[in-house]
């Protein structure tokens, strides 16, 4: 009978169907209105695809701007800018040795916003290398790689290497002098790797020297393979943050500042009883309580969290706006360099790689094997093993904790030495890679 009535109603209110259609469509897309209650905030986080990767509640310590400095997010946003500008540039690019350079000139001459897009792509790439590296420094100096976050650190080191490789493959695409010689040198370094080196170089170039095959291969790696691999790894990296208990924080971050009621009143309407658990017989689970893991809050657990919506979202928005604004500003004032077209007979003198590879170039100017393969390989292996070597539990979630003086000092030396090498390579090397004074 009820069924029949409702059918009747629909029939009689065809007009209603039409007038309510916009709202019905809107409601079917967005399950919740803008929330004004804590229950609404929970539901919004839970039911929105783009928000569900956030926890419903986030620890106050996580939101301290100077703890993370937003560097991980900044890397993500730069990656997104790179994806968007990269896809746009693909509309006008041809990976051919006879056309690539002309297409670069077309960006200047006949493509609307061509120069600006290329600037954004180039400067975001530089920014991303820097942001990812600084993010790694932040994680190290705050001791955040310690248990249970060891594997996420390993993934992070992998993502840093992929970032460098993406940047490296992108460098060949304009087919200018810098491109050609940076890749000639870079792939020659790969050839020094023991046993598989020469094979690896041949697979990478598709030929014995840098040419059309190499350009096509680098293009495919740059626009398809690496972005896909990186997207997958970023997803796992983010998922692990949640599953490893959110961002690291010091032990004393959980001290109760304002005592919470056993069950927050405003969560009540969505609670369900769990009668089987005697020791929690009075507990009621909020929406977030249904999820197992470190964020499950049942009643009287010390709680120093705030709702992600809007606290975390606003912080993210702030980093996003800052990142985009920075890239746009730099791209408006500085043009990405484009050197002369490739001349396979005359390397520019000095032939310098982009700044973040100049430390490596300085190293290979002493020994190709040790500088280009041996030392970097050792560095990467040690970096990846860091969380399994340094197993002390103290000093997590604090910048430069006293308990971590040794680890932090060693890492600082590693960072400073690499920065010094980059500075030497950038400013103190002139023609024929001879030592010159910039002053």
């Amino acid at each position, binding site marked *: 009978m009820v069924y029949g009535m409702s059918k009747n109603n629909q029939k009689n209110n065809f007009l209603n169907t039409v007038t309510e259609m916009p709202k019905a469509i809107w409601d079917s897309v967005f399950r919740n209105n803008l929330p004004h209650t804590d229950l609404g905030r929970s539901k919004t986080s839970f039911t929105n695809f783009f928000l569900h990767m956030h926890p419903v509640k986030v620890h106050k310590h996580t939101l301290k701007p100077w703890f993370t400095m937003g560097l991980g997010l900044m890397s993500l946003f730069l990656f997104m800018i790179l994806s968007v500008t990269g896809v746009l540039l693909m509309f006008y690019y041809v990976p051919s040795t006879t056309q690539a350079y002309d297409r670069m000139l077309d960006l200047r001459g006949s493509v609307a916003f061509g120069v600006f897009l290329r600037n954004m792509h180039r400067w975001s790439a530089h920014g991303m290398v820097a942001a990812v590296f600084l993010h790694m420094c932040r994680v190290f100096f705050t001791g955040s790689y310690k248990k249970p976050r060891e594997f996420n650190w390993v993934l992070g080191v992998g993502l840093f290497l992929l970032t460098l490789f993406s940047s490296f493959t992108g460098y060949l695409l304009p087919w200018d002098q810098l491109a050609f*010689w940076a890749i*000639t*040198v870079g*792939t*020659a*370094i790969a050839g020094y790797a023991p046993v598989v080196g020469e094979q690896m170089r*041949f*697979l990478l170039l*598709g*030929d*014995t*020297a840098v*040419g*059309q*095959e190499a350009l096509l291969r680098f293009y495919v790696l740059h626009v398809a393979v690496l972005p896909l691999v990186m997207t997958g790894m970023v997803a796992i990296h983010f998922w692990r943050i949640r599953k490893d208990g959110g961002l690291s924080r010091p032990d004393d971050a959980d001290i109760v500042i304002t005592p919470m009621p056993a069950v927050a009143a405003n969560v009540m309407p969505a609670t369900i009883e769990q009668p089987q658990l005697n020791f929690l017989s009075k507990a009621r689970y909020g929406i977030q309580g249904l999820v197992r893991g470190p964020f499950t809050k049942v009643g009287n657990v010390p709680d120093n969290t705030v709702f992600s919506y809007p606290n975390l979202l606003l912080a993210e928005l702030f980093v996003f706006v800052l990142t985009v604004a920075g890239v746009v500003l730099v791209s408006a004032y500085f043009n990405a360099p484009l050197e002369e077209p490739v001349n*396979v*007979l*005359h*390397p*520019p*003198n*000095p*032939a310098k790689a982009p700044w973040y590879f100049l430390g490596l*170039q300085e190293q*290979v*100017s*002493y*020994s*190709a*094997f040790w*500088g*280009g393969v041996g030392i970097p390989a050792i560095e990467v292996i040690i970096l990846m093993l860091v969380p399994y070597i340094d197993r002390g539990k103290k000093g997590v979630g604090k910048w430069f904790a006293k308990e971590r003086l040794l680890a932090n000092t060693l890492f600082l030396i590693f960072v400073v030495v690499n920065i010094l090498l980059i500075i030497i390579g950038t400013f103190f090397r002139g*023609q*024929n*890679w*001879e030592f010159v004074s910039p002053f």
Partner: protein
Amino acid sequence: MSDKHNAQEVESGEPVSRRKVLAWLTSMGLFGSAIVSIVSNLVFIKPRATYGKPTRFAIGTPEQFPPGTRIALGDQKVAVIREGDKMAAISVVCTHLGCIVGVADTGFACPCHGSRFDQDGNVTGGPAPKPLPWYELSLAPNGELEVDKGKEIESGKWFTV
């Protein structure tokens, strides 16, 4: 299948269930296919033919290179050198990381990482691990000199015209 079953039974002394054997075979099958697909992908991306230049090429008659000549033939990445009636073809690809070295009367110098070589291509400074290779030079029946980059020869083994 039943043979395998019996064999394992004898070895461990305990009966192996049909389920275990099937699970083992399935895992091996999946693992094997994964290996095969990885290997075939590697085979796929390794080119079977390349479009490089021929390694043997003519460079002209000896008269075109008067005594005292030291010039680089750009397309072939080879320097042709003549002292008196002795001639040599020396690679101009740096043995360090593949940049093209500059040819001067005093030797060769690489702009990329500062490797330096003497007039015969021996390393005199910088990171280069090996001397510049010499290539076989010969006189073809038509009177032209021929360089074979496929054949490296000892440094200092001059070709007399």
